């Protein structure tokens, strides 16, 4: 592979590139979906190719191809250089990358049972068993169970001397029950262990077995049917306890995205938007209460944002984001780290925090979340509920929306429970809550401890033009928020 990558790097430099990198990527995916006892989808997909990224005359260019041949390397590298030259037509500043990156090494996701070595028979049998469990409740109209496996082999080399080989493996699975009341035109849904099809982690088949999808299926089916006759979530301002999966998405949307420094600098403005966390807030802005400690940790075992090096060759690291409520860190690239330092001075890190990730061979790396986590507190869940006189517990996301600076959000959850006098009470449906990001995190007065904490996967984070889907992780334990507006549905 070195011959291949050297050819691209040498040619790029010979044609005028002051910097070049090349990634060669092969990705395998397998997806299986069983719906109402029938295998509705089963596919094995393979995608391979390479991408060459160059800086010429201070401007970026990138080209990519699925054909791995010497002739195509030459064509694509020349195309990347030509594109970079076109980029200079309206250049306002030169690309500055800071200190060189010269990492070398290999990384493999630790896997106990390789999911590609588990037979399709075993995978289908597990899904059929779980699917049957979902349908044990007669009111379940649609029962779905699914598995997804993902493997990426990636070689990265740059003109500064870095050469890296990584193999990432992910396993995901989930079940979903939909109950329908046709007379009232009502549909309710319950999922496990996470919503929108599955939870996914950087691990092997052992992670799927640990989910115990068949063991949870009957309960999930029953809850979907029970929601049809549950009371609707009332409207008002109250205390809210969020379960860990909903909290993971809350972190993703209202913490993870606003700390992406490319958004802050406006380079995502035309699509995903910008961020309220402008550079003058760095090190001074009160993001949340003293109970709020956030990190971006690319070394976390099992996280979808865990790797050896990012797609600029920067080593995986744990970056403090919020310490006891005070905002103290961004997700950065080599280029944006230099720009931040120019603005805020030597208080900002000299090098990238290692958050540049590309969705395959045909996309450039952009700043993405790694594993953005709310660090655990010290409460037990039972004590947290017992300490709450009046409130609502919400869990598992059903809908999510947030403005383009990541301030005003509204989430809906699959299920909720009333809390009265320190006890969980009646089930509630159609639960929603809304708020403004700093105010909401400022109202957090309790986070559960390490025994309730785990990393959840978000395998569907969209960003960038052309569109890229990132796999991100979010560590979370249940947490409590005061004075939250709940219930906006008429």
């Amino acid at each position: 592979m070195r011959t291949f990558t050297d050819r691209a790097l040498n040619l790029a430099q010979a044609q005028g590139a002051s910097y070049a990198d090349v990634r060669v990527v092969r990705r395998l995916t397998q997806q299986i979906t069983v719906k109402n006892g029938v295998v509705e989808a089963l596919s094995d997909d393979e995608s391979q190719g390479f991408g060459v990224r160059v800086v010429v005359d201070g401007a970026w260019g990138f080209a990519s191809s699925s054909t791995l041949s010497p002739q195509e390397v030459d064509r694509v590298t020349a195309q990347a250089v030509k594109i970079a030259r076109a980029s200079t037509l309206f250049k306002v500043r030169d690309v500055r990358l800071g200190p060189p990156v010269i990492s070398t090494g290999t990384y493999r996701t630790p896997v106990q049972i390789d999911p590609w070595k588990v037979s399709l028979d075993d995978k289908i049998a597990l899904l059929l068993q779980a699917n049957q469990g979902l349908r044990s409740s007669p009111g379940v109209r649609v029962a779905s169970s699914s598995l997804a496996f993902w493997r990426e082999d990636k070689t990265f080399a740059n003109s500064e001397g870095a050469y890296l080989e990584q193999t990432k493996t992910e396993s995901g699975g989930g079940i979903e029950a939909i109950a329908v009341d046709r007379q009232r035109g009502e549909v309710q849904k319950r999922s496990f262990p996470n919503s929108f099809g599955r939870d996914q982690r950087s691990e092997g088949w052992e992670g799927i077995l640990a989910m115990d999808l068949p063991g949870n299926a009957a309960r999930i089916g029953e809850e979907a049917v029970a929601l049809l006759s549950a009371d609707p979530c009332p409207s008002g301002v109250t205390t809210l306890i969020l379960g860990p999966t909903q909290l993971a998405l809350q972190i993703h949307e209202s913490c993870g995205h606003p700390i992406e420094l490319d958004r802050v600098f406006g380079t995502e403005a035309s699509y995903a938007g910008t961020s309220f966390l402008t550079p003058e807030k760095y090190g001074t802005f009160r993001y949340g209460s003293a109970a709020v400690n956030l990190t971006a940790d690319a070394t976390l075992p099992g996280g979808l944002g865990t790797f050896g090096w990012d797609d600029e060759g920067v080593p995986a690291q744990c970056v403090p984001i919020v310490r006891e409520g005070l905002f103290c860190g961004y997700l950065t690239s080599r280029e944006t780290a230099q720009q931040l330092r120019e603005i805020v001075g030597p208080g900002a890190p000299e090098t990238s925090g290692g958050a540049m990730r590309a969705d395959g061979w045909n996309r450039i790396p952009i700043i993405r979340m790694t594993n953005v986590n709310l660090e655990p507190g010290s409460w037990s869940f039972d004590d947290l509920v017992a300490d709450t006189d009046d409130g609502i517990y919400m869990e598992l996301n059903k809908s999510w929306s947030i403005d383009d600076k990541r301030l005003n959000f509204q989430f809906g959850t699959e299920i909720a429970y009333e809390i009265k006098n320190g006890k969980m009470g009646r089930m509630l449906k159609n639960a929603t809550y809304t708020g403004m990001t700093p105010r909401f995190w400022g109202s957090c007065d309790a986070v559960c401890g390490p025994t309730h904490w785990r990393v959840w996967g978000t395998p569907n984070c969209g960003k960038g033009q052309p569109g890229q889907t990132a796999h991100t992780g979010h560590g979370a334990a249940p947490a409590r928020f005061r004075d939250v507006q709940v219930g906006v549905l008429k």
Partner: protein
Amino acid sequence: MLGQERIKQIAELILARSMADQTEVMVSASDSALTRFANSTIHQNVAETDAEVRIRVVLKDPSGSGAKIGVASTNNVEEAALCRTLEAALSIARLQPPNPDFHSLPAPQPITEVASYSEATAGCSPETRARGAGAICLLARDAGVVASGALTTASLEFGIANSLGVSAYHRTTQADVNTVIMSDTSAGYASAFSMDVRTLDFEAIGREAVTKCMKSRNPKPLEPGEYTVILEPYAVQDFLHMMTWTGFGAVAYQEGRSFMVGKLGQQIVDRRVSIWDDGLSSEGVPFPFDFEGVPKQRVDLIEAGVARAVVYDSYSAGKESRHSTGHALPAPNPMGPMPLNLFFAGGDTSIEEMIRGTQRGIYVTRFHYTRPVDPVRVVITGMTRDGTFLVENGEVAYPVKNLRFTQSYLESLNSLDGISRATRLLTGMGGMTCDSVPALKVHQFRFTGATEF
């Protein structure tokens, strides 16, 4: 791009080697490039050459009850990789239980040729894209504001063949530009889409967004509540997408999740509303067949306010013993068929007349981050973005800070005050759809929150 002959060779190779009872081959290839700008300079400039071969095999169950289906794909078009992919699809099929609902791959039908290819778009150079982006950036610089956006040109080709005789090929091009212009306190948006890059007027797009940005400076807060709204086509396009996700497809209908369930033949929205899908119309960017090689049919989804039909692929059609309408997506696809060429019929008024006839209301340029809250009622939440204004006494009074809405789109289509004559062609869902949409005026649109900008 592989070209029609090479695609045909690939399909023939796989069909000849397959031992399955039925086999389908979908070959796609693309050359695409995107020039992205922000802070009034080009910051990303990328190109991609890709191809995909997707193989679906069908093994009939000996008992006669259904079939086993396997799908595998690769983007490596060398013969060894193609054979390996075929074997993977066969292995997958052999190992699974039969699907009793699957009847057959589609049989061949005559396909109407449509033209949707532009040599100018296919050959668009990085310099041409840079000049287009630059035209917008210069307009922004002259106005003292900053431009961001993206300009995409792409050529794509699709070939679909199956062992029953389906053999279809089509090539198309796409050119798309969008921009967000920002000042310290405001933003403006504009976009355009065409198969021919020469028809995109970059300066006009830039002027539209710059003008909107300048007019929306220093927005004032506005209390949430129910307002009459005037929605530009950019916002109305979201109505079509959300109705697609929640109810225009056969799977949602068959599973009882669609707002169309039990309503076919009934008045569900205002009589002035007609929505149809037509992949063959030259008023959009036509594509003659779906991802199973079935000819696209015009499907009237809502006609004069009456729910008429949903769209089908061969699998969902087979469940009801009917024919596909030509709306399949690539296999495997548990989501089911989707309309990708939607038309919302224009009306008899204009945006200017809508404003003149409004005592108090809100003018919305577009929506952001919309999601279903109650899919059956098509209750959607989202934010306004890039130009929101208060309208008072028949005039645009002043810009307002962005608002969150939580509103049933179906109810809005029953609360119509007007539909613009003019429609706009827009692309959406990551370039998958091509939609023709008017502006709407709607009363009692429910805003449930506000933000700080």
